[in-house]
């Protein structure tokens, strides 16, 4: 015991005389350990992969995929490469995430503001909504909406018909496809109207600075938008017709051709993601608005600003600063949560690539790495964007 103590003392003295050791030695140790762990794993990996007859390498990406994907935004069949399959999965992930983000934001802001309403009934209902959809696991919500409700949809020969041109059955919801004539005219007109609005609003702003006269920009923008686009549609011969889904039988199977189909998996996933994430966004919005000091509103009122002006000029600019960073975090969470698609067979990147492709090729390391890298890239880029946005908008302090 005494010998041990003496040696520890010696070590401590030694460390005091050479403080740099305390700095470099632990780091060296960690690098060494990491090196050992990594080489151990790699050695095992190469032995195991060789034993299974699977080569490592990313060449497989060019190979034929040999499987079909149920839903894709771009053309894909079993002759396309794995790389293209990855792309399809990625696009599907972005699609459901985009839809989810849009609705989650809209619902979230609405619920968040309602939560602060002076109407006690409304505020309680909002609170109950938040507590219910926040405390139930997302996976369960996805299952619920998918299995329990969408399965109530009938089979293809017995579809639910809405408004005579929307058909809902177990294979999906079919809506008419838009068929455009002279779409390019419309697109140019649309872009032109946006530009026109931009310039007109800037002009109005300058006018207000010069003379103090205020013109309602929102109404004027709407008028410009509709006028220009209507003129273009009329004189540019822009036509729009609908290609209705028509029930056809093909070898005894009923199918709707000619429309656009939205598979129930996409609907269920987008719906649950939106509801679940909206609860968190609602809380962010509430925190943001509550975070504005009461004194700000009083000061604004005392210099004569109207309720609408106070909201527009004082409350919302400050609240957004507080709201946007955590909301962006929620967007990221939603995108990551979209990977739960695998549980209901929506062909997102996890199911298509880390699921089907991995099962077929056995290249676990390459595929899982690529998938994780994809999500990492998405996360990191959004974080960087958020950091840049924060710096740009931070309120200057001494």
């Amino acid at each position, binding site marked *: 015991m005494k010998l041990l103590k003496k040696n520890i003392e010696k070590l401590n003295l030694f460390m005091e005389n050479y403080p740099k050791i305390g700095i470099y030695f632990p780091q060296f140790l960690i690098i060494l350990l990491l090196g050992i762990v990594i080489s151990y794993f790699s050695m095992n990996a190469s032995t195991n992969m060789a034993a299974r007859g699977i080569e490592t390498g990313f060449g497989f990406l060019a190979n034929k995929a040999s499987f079909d994907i149920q839903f894709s935004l771009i053309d894909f069949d079993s002759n396309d490469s794995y790389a293209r399959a990855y792309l399809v999965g990625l696009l599907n992930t972005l699609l459901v995430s985009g839809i989810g983000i849009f609705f989650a934001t809209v619902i979230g802001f609405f619920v968040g503001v309602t939560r602060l309403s002076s109407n006690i009934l409304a505020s309680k209902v909002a609170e109950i909504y938040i*507590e219910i959809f926040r405390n139930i696991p997302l996976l369960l919500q996805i299952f619920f909406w998918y299995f329990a409700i969408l399965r109530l949809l009938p089979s293809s020969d017995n579809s639910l018909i809405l408004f005579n041109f929307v058909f809902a059955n177990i294979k999906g919801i079919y809506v008419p496809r838009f068929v455009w004539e002279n779409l390019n005219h419309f697109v140019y007109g649309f872009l032109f109207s946006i530009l026109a609005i931009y310039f007109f609003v800037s002009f109005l702003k300058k006018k207000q600075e010069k003379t103090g006269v205020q013109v309602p920009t929102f109404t004027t923008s709407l008028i410009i938008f509709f006028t220009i686009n209507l003129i273009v549609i009329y004189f540019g011969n822009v036509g729009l017709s609908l290609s209705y889904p028509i029930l056809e039988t093909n070898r005894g199977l009923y199918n709707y051709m000619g429309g656009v189909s939205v598979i129930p998996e996409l609907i269920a996933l987008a719906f649950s993601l939106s509801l679940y994430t909206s609860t968190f966004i609602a809380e962010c919005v509430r925190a943001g608005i509550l975070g504005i000091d009461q004194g700000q509103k009083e000061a604004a009122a005392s210099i004569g600003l109207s309720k609408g002006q106070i909201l527009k000029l004082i409350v919302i600019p400050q609240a957004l600063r507080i709201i946007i960073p955590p909301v962006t975090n929620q967007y990221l969470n939603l995108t990551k949560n979209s990977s739960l698609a695998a549980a209901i067979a929506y062909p997102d990147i996890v199911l298509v690539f880390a699921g089907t492709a991995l099962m077929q090729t056995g290249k676990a390391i390459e595929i899982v790495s690529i998938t*994780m890298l994809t999500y*990492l890239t998405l996360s*990191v880029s959004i974080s960087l964007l958020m950091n840049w946005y924060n710096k740009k908008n931070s309120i200057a302090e001494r």
Partner: protein
Amino acid sequence: MNFINWSKKNLFANWKDSLLTITILYLFYVSIPPLLNWVFLDATFFGDSKKDCTGGGACWVFINVWIKRFTYGMYPNDQIWRINLAFVIFFISIGSYFFVSSKIKKYIFIFLTLVFPFLAIFLFHGGSLGLEEVETRVWGGLFLTLFISVFSIIFCFPIGVLLAMGRRSNLPVIKYFSIGFIELWRGVPLITVLFMAAVMFPVFLPSGTNLDKLIRVIIAITLFESAYIAEVVRGGLQAIPRGQYDAANSIGMGYWKSHLLIILPQALKIVIPGVANTFIALFKDTPLILVVGLMELLGMVNMAKTNPAWLGLATEGYVFAAFVYFIFCFSMSRYSLSLENKLKTTN
């Protein structure tokens, strides 16, 4: 008289408010009675098979019959007493914690954190001392949910704290390793991590070794959540004023002593809400393990609903599961709120 005044002010203050109130009341009128009918009035609660569900409402018989499976998974019926025993010991320890002197409190704490985990694993798994071995393959249901949550929480917390300290370290290797580790786990979805644990991890071990899938899953969830804990704790560490670090150093405390005795106790108190939220999120993430073949509560419900004798009762199953999860998560968040309030006033 008072109620009318109160309603006038809070529900009907102006025409917009009144419209809102009326719309909400109408929605209640349309949705709540049918819901109550389905859940209670027309529902069947007792029986032993689907045929007993005659009313138009929910068939709770389904839950009644399957409740053992939902709670214990496929654990052999005659061994279920072992699980119950472990939970009883757990609740007695927690319960008595509040009623004993502080000296005994310390022993109870040590028991719970160091002894009980091993005791529980032994009880659940068996394999010696006369207890029949029950493979982790058949563990399931709410029991599995709680098992995974508790063990992941216990392990991810210290790892997270170490990572948070590592990220703030002055030693570049440790700092960048911590940053990389944290950002890696935070940037990817849990499902990919679980796939990695189930599919990729065996590739990295010498061929022939077979690390139990449950252990792999717990490791995966632990590492994943530790990154989130790390970020929450880091916020707490940053909030401690520089003066505390200086004071600790000036009385001769080194890095570890000052952190253990001065910095961390304060930082952890600040981050209780964030940590509680992460634990609740962990609990809500456990259902994901069904994609790698482990049947916790939701997985068991999924399995039960495809049983040919019980088709079409998915709604009842999901509503039941939702109810159970809601009770747990809601209670946890209320408890953390009350804890936060209690600590606010004592400080």
